[in-house]
């Protein structure tokens, strides 16, 4: 009996499933047959949805990787970075980096963390390889490995044998260095690396899968890991309590027990602050300059530090792409609506032979499913293309970009989006069908009983399009303009035909000083002898300054100012204007005279009348005042001073003759001729340097410009579609109006008037959206809120008005430019 029941149920189930699967195949076939005849429709849907959903998947995956995905380290939730701030007497943050002694004090004395690691990033020329490559190096304590838990391809990590003050010269290299610089040599663990005359034995190779937390800046990956003891902070700076160094990083882990109890980060910060600050106050008590200053330590999650403000970029991108998707959806909705209107006869026949409402829905849903399924496949290709492009161009701009790929998250999003869109479009189309009126469609000639898009839906489509496009275009134009403004900011110095390079010199001591000086002198001579070279200067590049504590002798007033060392040719070479006094002389440089030059901003701070010649700063006499230059991509102009550079300064600026070029190879071979000890560390033109500083602006100009154009284009197409459909629907009415005497301009006025409300409503909605954004993100966008926005708003509204007008006029043109009879024909 029981088995009979069982087999009966089995039979029913298999029947049902075969009917069901047969039904699905039948519906899919029918849908495909019906779509096949409309290649234009298919192409419009697939390209629009494929591209926009592709962009959406791309940005959603980015958002997932940056905001949600766990970091690829064990106990990643318990990892923290401690940030060190120097607070000046005005209670303002003066420096955001560790001073070396404070870092070591914290490392040796803290009780808050279970484990802590120190890191310092620098770069050096690898002397042991014939190519002398420049490699970025991380100097770390052994805990770095236990906190990040990297897998090793070969050998071991650092252990107690490499703890602080062991001075054990060993090295771990990355997988990429092993493959790239050592061609994957099998016995790599027998090799040694020679940096600055220290020979490090390679003890391990990191696994290929390991990705280092880019704590030194997005896009900075080290090639070699060396023990902390060998870091390049000078002996002097290791003991200076007041000089901060941005290369110093403190990474730590709270025990999981602590993390669970959430000894919150603020408390941890307070505990560490008092530990470090108390000690610091004691150490600097003799220095007048730091009177009233303090130290503040902040504990931040590793994740938030790595994200470093990129979340707002992600949200912005997400908002932009969602806007695009909505415009695309409105456009495609319009296409589906028109298609349903077109299909009224075949739907009526189906209804006449007994199709239920639900069955009609299923047949429409089959079509939308096929289209959305195909669009999603295209979208996945678009998204993987997008990942490649982002990895190529945004690697230095957004963190964790190398983790982007089509993953489970992307695929589930893709499937969900496809199903939702298919349902949405099917529901929208099905809602247009007045099932009871379908039968009369067959009986009458079609007039009056047919499917028409209701004026309400048309108006909703118009309003939503206008609202989204106005808001998006306005935001994009604002970003575009702001980035252009920054790009076009006059710098106050000349960067064309100027190059900059850094040499790697052997460390100077009493024994080799004369030899080094002679070599540098020879390098200068050879460089000037090059036919293309007009002028050189041993100075830091225009955009690079350090932060210094400065005191004036007269008032004993303390300042924190930006400073750098230059030679007497610097201002001439970059054409920076002199306002008062004299430049350094060759003697000042040669004999290291105690003289200084300040910029106008600093001069005004020092003396309101700007008359600062003769004042002394830290014992150096001010002999000149120069114009304040604008460093690319910096919003403010700082107080700056310049002091004489040492004759063995390793940085060189070169001015070449008009239309001439200097290349890296020339400099490399020139240095080789001078001495085997001098290597080229880096080389770039000043224009390349400012370009890389302005990378964000270039990316912004490009993305916001493209996004604005795509948005305008999509919405033009969409508005044209809706209005052209509605004009088509009203053809007969418009023909009647023409018959009783309406002229072309009367009809244009009529169509504009009829759509004006929907358009104005859209604009009003967009204003509300913008207002909400302004209120909600006031802090982030306060820089953008200026009167300059008004003309931009005007331009945006004009563009929308123009597009709306064109969308009203063009469909009408074919009616009003022909005799009225054409509009009346075929409607009877």
């Amino acid at each position, binding site marked *: 009996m029981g088995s009979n029941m069982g087999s009966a149920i089995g039979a029913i189930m298999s029947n049902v499933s075969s009917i069901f699967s047969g039904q699905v195949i039948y519906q899919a076939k029918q849908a495909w047959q019906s779509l096949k005849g409309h290649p234009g429709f298919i192409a419009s849907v697939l390209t629009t949805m494929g591209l926009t959903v592709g962009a959406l998947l791309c940005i959603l995956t980015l958002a997932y990787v940056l905001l949600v995905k766990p970091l690829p380290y064990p106990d990643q939730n318990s990892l923290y970075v401690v940030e060190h701030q120097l607070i000046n007497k005005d209670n303002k943050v003066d420096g955001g980096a560790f001073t070396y002694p404070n870092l070591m004090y914290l490392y040796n004395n803290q009780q808050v963390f279970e484990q802590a690691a120190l890191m310092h990033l620098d770069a050096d020329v690898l002397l042991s390889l014939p190519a002398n490559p420049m490699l970025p190096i991380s100097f770390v304590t052994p805990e770095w490995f236990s906190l990040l838990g990297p897998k090793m391809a070969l050998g071991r990590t650092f252990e107690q044998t490499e703890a602080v003050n062991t001075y054990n010269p060993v090295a771990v290299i990355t997988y990429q260095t092993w493959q790239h610089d050592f061609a994957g040599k099998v016995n790599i663990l027998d090799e040694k690396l020679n940096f600055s005359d220290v020979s490090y034995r390679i003890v391990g190779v990191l696994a290929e899968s390991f990705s280092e937390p880019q704590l030194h800046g997005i896009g900075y990956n080290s090639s070699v890991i060396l023990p902390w003891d060998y870091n390049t902070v000078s002996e002097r700076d290791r003991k200076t309590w007041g000089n901060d160094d941005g290369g110093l990083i403190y990474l730590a882990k709270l025990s999981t027990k602590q993390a669970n109890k959430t000894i919150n980060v603020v408390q941890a910060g307070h505990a560490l602050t008092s530990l470090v600050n108390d000690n610091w106050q004691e150490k600097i008590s003799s220095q007048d300059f730091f009177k009233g200053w303090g130290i503040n330590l902040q504990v931040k999650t590793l994740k938030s530090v790595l994200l470093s403000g990129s979340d707002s970029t992600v949200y912005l991108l997400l908002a932009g792409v969602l806007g695009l998707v909505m415009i695309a959806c409105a456009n495609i909705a319009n296409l589906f609506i028109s298609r349903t209107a077109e299909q009224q006869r075949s739907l009526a026949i189906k209804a006449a032979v007994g199709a239920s409402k639900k069955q009609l829905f299923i047949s429409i849903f089959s079509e939308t499913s096929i289209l959305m399924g195909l669009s999603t496949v295209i979208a996945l290709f678009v998204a993987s293309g997008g990942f490649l492009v982002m990895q190529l161009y945004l690697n230095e701009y957004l963190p964790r970009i190398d983790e982007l790929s089509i993953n489970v998250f992307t695929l589930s999003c893709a499937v969900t989006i496809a199903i939702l869109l298919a349902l949405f479009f099917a529901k929208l189309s099905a809602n247009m069908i007045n099932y009871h009126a379908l039968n009369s469609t067959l009986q009458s000639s079609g007039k009056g009983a047919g499917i028409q898009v209701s004026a309400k839906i048309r108006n909703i489509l118009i309003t939503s399009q206008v609202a989204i496009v106005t808001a998006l275009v306005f935001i994009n134009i604002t970003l575009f303009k702001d980035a252009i403004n920054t790009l076009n900011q006059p710098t106050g110095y000349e960067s064309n035909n100027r190059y900059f390079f850094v040499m790697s010199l052997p460390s100077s001591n009493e024994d080799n000083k004369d030899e080094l000086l002679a070599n540098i002198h020879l390098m200068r001579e050879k460089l000037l002898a090059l036919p293309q070279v007009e002028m050189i200067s041993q100075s830091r590049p225009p955009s690079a300054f350090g932060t210094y504590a400065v005191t004036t002798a007269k008032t004993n007033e303390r300042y924190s100012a930006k400073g750098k060392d230059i030679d007497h040719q610097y201002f001439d070479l970059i054409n920076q204007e002199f306002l008062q006094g004299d430049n350094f002389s060759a003697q000042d440089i040669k004999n290291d005279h105690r003289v200084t030059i300040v910029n106008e901003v600093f001069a005004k701070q020092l003396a309101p009348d700007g008359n600062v010649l003769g004042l002394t700063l830290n014992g150096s006499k001010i002999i000149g005042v120069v114009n304040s230059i604008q460093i690319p991509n910096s919003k403010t102009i700082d107080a700056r001073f310049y002091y004489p550079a040492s004759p063995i300064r390793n940085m060189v600026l070169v001015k070449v003759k008009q239309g001439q070029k200097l290349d890296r190879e020339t400099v490399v071979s020139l240095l080789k001729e001078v001495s085997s000890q001098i290597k080229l560390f880096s080389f770039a033109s000043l224009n390349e340097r400012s370009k890389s500083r302005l990378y964000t602006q270039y990316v912004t100009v490009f993305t916001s410009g493209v996004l604005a154009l795509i948005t305008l284009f999509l919405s033009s197409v969409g508005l044209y579609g809706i209005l052209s459909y509605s004009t088509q629907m009203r053809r*007969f009415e418009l023909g009647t*109006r023409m018959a*009783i*005497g*309406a002229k072309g301009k009367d009809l244009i006025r009529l169509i504009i008037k009829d759509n004006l409300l929907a358009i104005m409503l859209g604009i009003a909605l967009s204003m509300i959206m913008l207002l909400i954004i302004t209120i909600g993100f006031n802090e982030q966008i306060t820089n953008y809120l200026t009167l300059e926005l008004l003309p931009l708003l005007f331009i945006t509204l004009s563009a929308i008005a123009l597009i709306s007008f064109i969308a009203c006029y063009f469909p009408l043109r074919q009616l009003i430019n022909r*005799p009225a009879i054409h509009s*009346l024909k075929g409607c*009877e």
Partner: protein
Amino acid sequence: MTTINNEKSSKLKIQMKGISKVFETEELETHALKNIDLSINEGDYVSISGPSGCGKSTLLSLLGLLDMPSSGQYFIEGQDVSDLSLDEAAEVRNKKIGFVFQSFNLIDELSVFDNVALPLRYDVERPTIETITKRVNECLELVSMSHRKSHKPNQLSGGQQQRIAIARALVANPAILLVDEPTGNLDSKSGDQVMDVLAELNKNGTTICMVTHDPRYADMASIQLKLLDGMILTTPVAQLAV
């Protein structure tokens, strides 16, 4: 009802001389109308009938300046309208021609009053609201539809809608009423009522030219033209009188 108003025939409203209409496609030239001569005097009631495809509708659209002839000359109240721009034609239609269509062609969104007032709104002379109100009320009176002023067309029967359409055709005091199968979409009772309204209007002086394939209604006109293959078979009485 069908008496010929010879006393009124003194004033020439419509005159066509040698009008032809050729429709050209890539392969084919169709001569829809061939060398039509036609005159209609003030107060005439002209019917044009013929089998389908004979050119009735084409002739009516040329008469109504909805389309332009391929050749020939056309005068309305002495004004040469053979070669007008689209906007000039619209202006002449507005002032001198009243259309009554088979399917009424009322605008659903507008009230009866606004439908009737529509031609006056397109008048270049921009009549005042008072003038418009007065004139619309007069015309609604003429078709006995004053009590339905604020209704929407779809709240009315077919016959009532056609009467509204006639009121709209009259509102600008046109030179001629062009009527296209006015009873085609109506039952016979409503059709008769509409024809009565037309007859009454003609009796009071309105010039009417009507296209119909219904011989019963064609007989109600004082002048009956028969069209076959784009040519007029019957010599209109009115033309002889000139």
